[in-house]
């Protein structure tokens, strides 16, 4: 994964994502020009739609919330050396778990007890759904990429089956459960802010955003400050070294995937508890896959993932605005822009690294030569 010519850390962490994003934007601008639109105008509408109004910002953050959960899920698995493509399915099951708890208990328990139980239900269902591919990977040698993809399909059909045959509201036409009782409603951001006396427009944004940010902090602490995280990363970087250290790689596969599934399962808190108030189909809406992009772009670091999630949230929200405001500009164009971003920031993240490295070196050498008038004396080879 590393670039052939090492970049300074600041350039790798900050400069590269910005440059990659700029290239993606430039490529998209060319396409926008081709279809006869003004890129600058489109961009202005997009940015304004995503960040310009309180309502737009709320939608952006609402989308971002789900991406943070799934992005963190992908990142935890990645640090354990696993590529979890199954966040979509794990989120679906998480929503099911959250919904089942709500359907069962929303008439009986008050919100302060019910909501944590719903969170737990979602996390456990997501964890269980990820544990099966994890077990198959660790003990049966079935590659987790393949099994998690398959489990996405299974999750979506399982949800259809349960809703159609067992959970659908009696007499209703729509394939969805009866609305939960009010205790199962996770407060919206406008409601929460109203308590504090701040006026905020109504939107799907709810306080699960704070849960997501908390999860990001938790993942950071887990990976880089806990012994469990140390072992997880050891296995992810070098299975041989981990085994040498007395860490069982098989256990770590289960742990990494379990945590990953639990994080993905929390999407249910945003979509089911926070927004819909009932169990329905397709509530994940691709957040599991966007989470992969967010994790890749955020370099599998919680802070980066939060940033990337906000970016993707802005694209979703701003894109919807653009297709509404600019005649002849369909949502597909926004999907294209997302595609460019994933392409340049994810798949081709290091394509420009050699040039960037050369430019940085050139500047470095020039400034040093200017200082002492002598070519830089470099440390002797440290490569063994």
């Amino acid at each position, binding site marked *: 994964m590393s670039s052939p010519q090492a970049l300074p850390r600041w350039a790798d962490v900050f400069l590269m994502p910005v440059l990659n994003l700029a290239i993606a934007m430039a490529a998209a601008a060319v396409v926008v020009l081709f279809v006869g639109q003004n890129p600058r105008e489109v961009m202005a509408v997009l940015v304004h739609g995503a960040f310009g109004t309180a309502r737009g910002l709320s939608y952006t953050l609402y989308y971002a919330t789900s991406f943070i959960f799934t992005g963190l899920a992908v990142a935890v698995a990645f640090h354990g050396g696993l590529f979890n493509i199954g966040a979509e399915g794990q989120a679906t099951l998480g929503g099911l778990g959250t919904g089942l708890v709500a359907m069962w208990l929303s008439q009986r328990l008050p919100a302060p007890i019910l909501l944590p139980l719903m969170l737990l239900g979602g996390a456990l269902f997501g964890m269980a759904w990820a544990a099966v591919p994890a077990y198959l990977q660790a003990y049966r040698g079935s590659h987790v990429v393949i099994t998690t993809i398959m489990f996405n399909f299974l999750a979506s059909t399982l949800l259809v089956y349960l809703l159609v045959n067992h959970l659908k509201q009696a007499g209703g036409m729509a394939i969805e459960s009866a609305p939960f009782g009010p205790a199962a409603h996770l407060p919206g951001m406008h409601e929460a802010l109203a308590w504090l006396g701040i006026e905020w427009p109504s939107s799907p944004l709810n306080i699960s955003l704070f849960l997501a940010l908390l999860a990001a902090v938790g993942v950071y602490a887990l990976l880089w400050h806990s012994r469990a995280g140390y072992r997880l990363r050891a296995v992810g970087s070098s299975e041989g070294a981990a085994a040498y250290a007395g860490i069982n790689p098989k256990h770590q596969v289960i742990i990494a995937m379990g945590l990953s599934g639990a994080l993905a399962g929390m999407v249910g808190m945003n979509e089911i508890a926070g927004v819909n108030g009932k169990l329905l189909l397709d509530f994940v809406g691709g957040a599991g896959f966007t989470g992969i992009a967010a994790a890749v772009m955020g370099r599998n670091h919680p802070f980066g993932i939060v940033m990337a999630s906000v970016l993707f949230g802005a694209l979703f929200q701003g894109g919807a605005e653009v297709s509404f405001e600019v005649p002849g500009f369909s949502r597909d164009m926004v999907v294209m822009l997302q595609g460019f971003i994933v392409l340049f920031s994810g798949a081709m993240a290091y394509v420009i690294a050699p040039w960037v490295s050369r430019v940085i070196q050139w500047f470095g050498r020039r400034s040093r030569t200017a200082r002492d008038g002598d070519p830089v004396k470099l440390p002797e080879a440290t490569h*063994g």
Partner: protein
Amino acid sequence: MNVITPTPDVPTAAPAVAVRMVDISKRFGPVLANGDVNLRVLSGTVHGLVGENGAGKSTLMSVLYGFYAADSGSIEVFGKPARIRNAHEAIALGLGMVHQHFMLVDTLSAIENVMLGAEPHVLLRRADALVRARLDELMASTGLHVKLDALVGDLSVGDRQRLEILKALYRGARILILDEPTAVLTPQETEQLFAVLARLREQGTTIVLITHKLKEVMRLCDHVTVMRGGRVVHESAIAQSSIAQLAEAMVGRKVNMGRQGDAPAAVGDVVLQAQGLALRDAMKVTRLHGLDLTLRAGEIVGVAGVAGNGQSELLELLSGLRAPDAGRLQLGAESFEVGHWLDPRTARRLGLAHVPEDRHARAMVMDFAAWESAVLGYEAQPAYSRGGWMRHGRMREATAALMERFDVRPRDVSLGSAKFSGGNQQKLVLAREIGQSPRVLLVGQPTRGVDIGAIEFIHAQLRALRDAGCALLVVSSELDEILALADRVLVMNDGRITGELPINECTEARIGLLMVQEEAAA
């Protein structure tokens, strides 16, 4: 015309220059791999190119062979200026390279490997006949004999090396570059190789020998160039140099190699005893045939043998990385058997430390910073973690102390593990394991890929640990290292211990014989 000496334009009286590299510089990012390097190799001679790891030997040869383009400088081959941009152009100029890691396809036969990429005819049967005729001729003239129809996967390491040399000669190599050719050979195979190289030299082939074994340089080479830190620091005819002089040039200071002091007169109690260790791999091939082994406090037991004869498996069993199919193990007061075998955590708890032979895949997590790798395996100790949380401050302090004690350079606890040189990585691993004051220390290839200066230091540390009463098992494929370190020597071949000798009865010849012997010596 003899195919081996197609240089009729070279007058025999005044030796012509086969390769002349002038002011070659090559930089990788901030690292200066070659700085104004000059190399002159006379035609028909064996030229030694020596230096520590990272001295720039391999880079220089890669520039010559067209893998890298030099930043500046020029190359002449047989007196003609040459611009070599890839291996094809190098071969066309008569250069041939035998890499340390052989470039052969295991699933093809020997002759198919020679043909690969240089098939003389579109029909394979015709090509086969043409190549075979030419190779028979070459084998007869050089003494390099290989079974042409055997699969390369079935050939011994020595055979594969001969095949590589044949391949280069078949492609018209008049200048052979050999990269660390004896690293994988037994002493006897080394002898054979040197006989062949001497014969090739007589026939006019020019040979560049990249090595760090100075004894071999003294034996075979006519001229030697020593590199250090990317620059040439010494150049002379072999007759005018000595091992001590070359070693000093390589390291930049005087070095003390070889044995230091005698084996201790008395050794202590038995601390580790293994009986009947047997192991079969996943392919049901027997790797160990019922090995017995005893380690006593205060001795260094050396395990000699050609790599791949069960030494790695032995270390894996004794360190708990793998369980055997049969056998027993007594470690301190606890005993283990099949079904209830040692695991790495138990091993550490019982005071058994292990410096694995594969530094990159086992001893460190290369993506970790030094301070994270420096607690690997001991991360659960209260000094390093409490209540499930890592104590970063303590880890960094401990790492800094280990680096100080073992002279790990640079003294940067935050540097990535992969960014240290091989010798410094090894020192850090040794520091970690010795820092636990173990009762038993298993060491695999203590100085593989380690510079001479660091070898001296590592050997001294191992001896000091022995003197402190630790039992050491040292596995090394470098016979010199075994002879310099061990108090008692076990020789392994084909999963058996074929002999055991106290150090004062060891000679290279005796050990070499045991290394190829099939059954245990009477």
